[in-house]
């Protein structure tokens, strides 16, 4: 069984992540997921691939802290966070957040909170590969 917090090169399966989440508890009434995908277009430029670099040990530690905080803050039954690194083609999946709670509102709110916090706090950087050249992405404030 794959762990609940992972950084990996390979793609992931929502069905596998949801099965792992549901295996933990039959009290789960609502599961929310967020999946970030590589768009083929960004700020007016065509994007063919996105390449990710991570400070792996710190990123994993921060994702585990996020998991603990979310479980506490939203009374989740469980949550899973998976982020890919390496090269991801346009249209492919980048990141998955899955949250399970007794009721729907905390699951959905926790999912939103987690992806917002992940973008702020987890040391991962993306570079867009375009036909006009490559460029590291500078996040908007």
């Amino acid at each position, binding site marked *: 069984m794959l762990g609940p917090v992972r950084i990996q090169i390979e793609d992931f399966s929502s069905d596998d992540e949801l099965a792992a989440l549901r295996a933990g508890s039959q009290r789960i009434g609502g599961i929310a997921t967020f999946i970030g995908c590589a768009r083929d277009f960004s700020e007016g430029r065509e994007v063919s691939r996105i390449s990710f670099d991570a400070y792996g040990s710190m990123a994993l530690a921060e994702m585990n802290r996020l998991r603990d905080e979310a479980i506490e803050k939203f009374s989740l039954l469980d949550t899973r966070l998976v982020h890919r690194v390496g090269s991801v083609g346009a249209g492919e999946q980048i990141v998955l957040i899955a949250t399970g709670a007794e009721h729907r509102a905390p699951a959905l709110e926790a999912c939103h909170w987690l992806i917002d916090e992940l*973008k*702020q706090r987890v*040391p991962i*950087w993306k*570079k867009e590969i375009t036909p006009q050249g490559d460029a*590291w992405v*500078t*996040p908007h404030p």
Partner: protein
Amino acid sequence: MIRILFFGPVAEQVAVREMQLEFHAGMRLMDVASHLQARYAEAFRLVSFIAVNSLQTKDMQLGLSDGDEIAFMAKFSGG
């Protein structure tokens, strides 16, 4: 030894992902930062966050220990 790590856009500018600096007693984070900033001014314009042993810090007076790992990082853009 102090281990220095660079990632993403900063690593691309420095043209190296990792380097080592000699540790000396009384060494503080600002000593390392200003030493590197002088050599890699371009790269350090991108630096927004510093982590010592995987924990973010803004305390430039922080005393270092032999074996510490310091990352100078651009704004995160994962997710």
